[in-house]
């Protein structure tokens, strides 16, 4: 396996998570390559969303969550002591299942992240906004109405706006939690195209309940089942010749 020659961006070691007494993640160890798209698949409730949220510590927001193990990004364990969680989240961006633009203008949505990072000059902000909207393949659709409310966009456009918003702060890693599950097929394919383009500059982790999407979009795939990592392999390999029977059953639709 030529994995060793690729850069590892995210390295989780023995990651376990409990919601109170209930264990949601069991000892997940996985190495995610830089500048590749890694997909997480598995039936509902298998822990893939929970796992992706451990990477940018969004589970910290939930009361009663305990986590053990480590998540190492660029040689630093993000669950170590003295970690600035806000700084972490500036480097690890997230796009959510249901698009959540701020009830502000399109411009202000994209400019939100940079402004928090201290960018004040209008010229600079303009440039970042334009660049992000270009990268998210939505510039042409909104360039004449940057002052309009973000809520006036369609569902698919809003989601691409959220992607633009996330990349406006130039993160290294982009986490996408079922980004197209609420979108129509045309918007879905636009977002999938986007993901393939973005991996040049970002390491992308995408959770999806749609196996065909995983097959289309990702370089690596991880199959989760009831909180455990069952199999992790190159996408082509997993879908043509899975190693575990459980994986094969899921992929062929014997359960889901």
């Amino acid at each position, binding site marked *: 396996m030529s994995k060793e020659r690729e850069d590892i961006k995210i390295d989780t070691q023995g990651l376990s998570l409990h919601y109170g007494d209930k264990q949601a993640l069991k000892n997940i160890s996985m190495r995610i390559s830089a500048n590749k798209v890694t997909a997480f698949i598995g039936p509902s409730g298998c822990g893939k969303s929970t796992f992706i949220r451990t990477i940018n510590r*969004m589970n910290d927001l939930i009361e009663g969550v305990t986590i053990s193990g480590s998540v190492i990004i660029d040689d630093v364990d993000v669950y170590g002591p003295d970690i600035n969680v806000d700084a972490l*989240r500036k480097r690890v*961006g997230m796009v959510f299942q249901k698009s*959540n633009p701020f009830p*502000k203008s399109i411009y202000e949505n994209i400019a*939100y992240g940079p402004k928090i990072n201290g960018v004040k000059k209008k010229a600079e902000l303009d440039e970042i906004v334009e660049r992000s909207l270009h990268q998210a393949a939505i510039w042409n659709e909104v360039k004449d109405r940057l002052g309009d409310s973000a*809520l006036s966009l369609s569902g698919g456009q809003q989601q691409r706006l959220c992607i633009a*918003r996330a990349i406006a702060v130039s993160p290294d890693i982009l986490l996408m939690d079922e980004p197209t599950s609420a979108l129509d097929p045309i918007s879905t394919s636009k977002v999938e195209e986007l993901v393939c383009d973005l991996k040049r500059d970002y390491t992308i982790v995408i959770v999806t309940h749609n196996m065909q999407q995983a097959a289309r979009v990702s370089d690596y795939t991880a199959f989760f089942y009831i909180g455990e990592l069952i199999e992790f392999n190159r996408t082509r390999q997993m879908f043509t010749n899975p190693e575990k029977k459980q994986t094969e059953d899921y992929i062929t639709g014997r359960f889901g």
Partner: protein
Amino acid sequence: MTGKKRSPLAFFATGLPLAATIIIVLMIVIIVVDFAIIGVPNLGLEFLTEYPRNNNTEGGIFPAIFGTLLLVIIMTLVAVPIGTITAIYLTEYARQNSWFARTIRFAVNTLAGVPSIVFGLFGAGFFIQTVGAGIDEARWESKLEVAEVALSEPSAPFATLKQATIADVLKFLESDDAVYWNEAINAIETYPGGETATASIDQVMTHLRANPELNWGKPGLIWAALTLALLTMPVVIVSVEEALRTVPRDIREASLALGATKLETIIRVVLPNSITGMLTGSILAVSRGAGEVAPILFTGVLNSARELPTAVTDQFMHLGYHLYVLATQSPNVEAARPMQYATTVVLLALTLALNITAIMLRSRLRKKQFT
């Protein structure tokens, strides 16, 4: 095809609420019209800008309007910021089931049910007699030191006599040789026995110490305003909390996922999104406080005042209280009646203005949010 007979229950379901609404609206209209008919003709520039004359049968109610406005402004400046910050803490920072948060909530809910006269008694007992008197005593102590020095001056009567007459002491304090000190003069004038009594310097000092000048320890605008602020604060807290809760969780998460701190999220996303609710709730709380009379009875309101309050420790006239004065303490009820009606119209207009402002502000901000 036979039509289904409309059930009488359906009739009541729509008919009763409609009837109730009509009755309520009718009552409001009757009240307003009844007062307006007699009151409005008596409203004039003179009424709004002059002092009452001739035992409240002539003139105007300007000092009452002024006092009410000043009172409401101070009350708002205290209640709204503190209430808002408390609500932000309770909603955003406190762990929802912590003992601390639950205690605060319980206190807020209980406070909301306390009768307003009890607030007035509390204001008198706590603000005036404890806090105010405490301030006065502390300041008096430092002045007493100056007094002792003054009375020990070579030119004071006590320099030559062990016991001096009060008259001589007063003459000294009023002369150019002494440290000019008005309050001491007022206090010494009340020395038992009057001007012909004699006292040693110690006796004078003891008497002074026992009679501090009351500046903060008596009813005043600031204490009435603080008492009212206590009364309206629970309403502000509850309505701000409600407004904050309507901000959906997903945009808070979006902000945090971008690396914003909790405070930045609150300031940049949560507050702008809930400002309409916060403002509306605050204005409604303020308009309730503006009409309350019981809390100000012991804490600063006057039957009549010859001049407008200029310091926060001054007492003041108040529209609501003035209505009571006009209705019950006027020697000539017939002549005072037009004033009563007109005063009521002014009070109603004030409340209406506050509520309309709330509605207008809310619809303007709502429009801005959704452009």
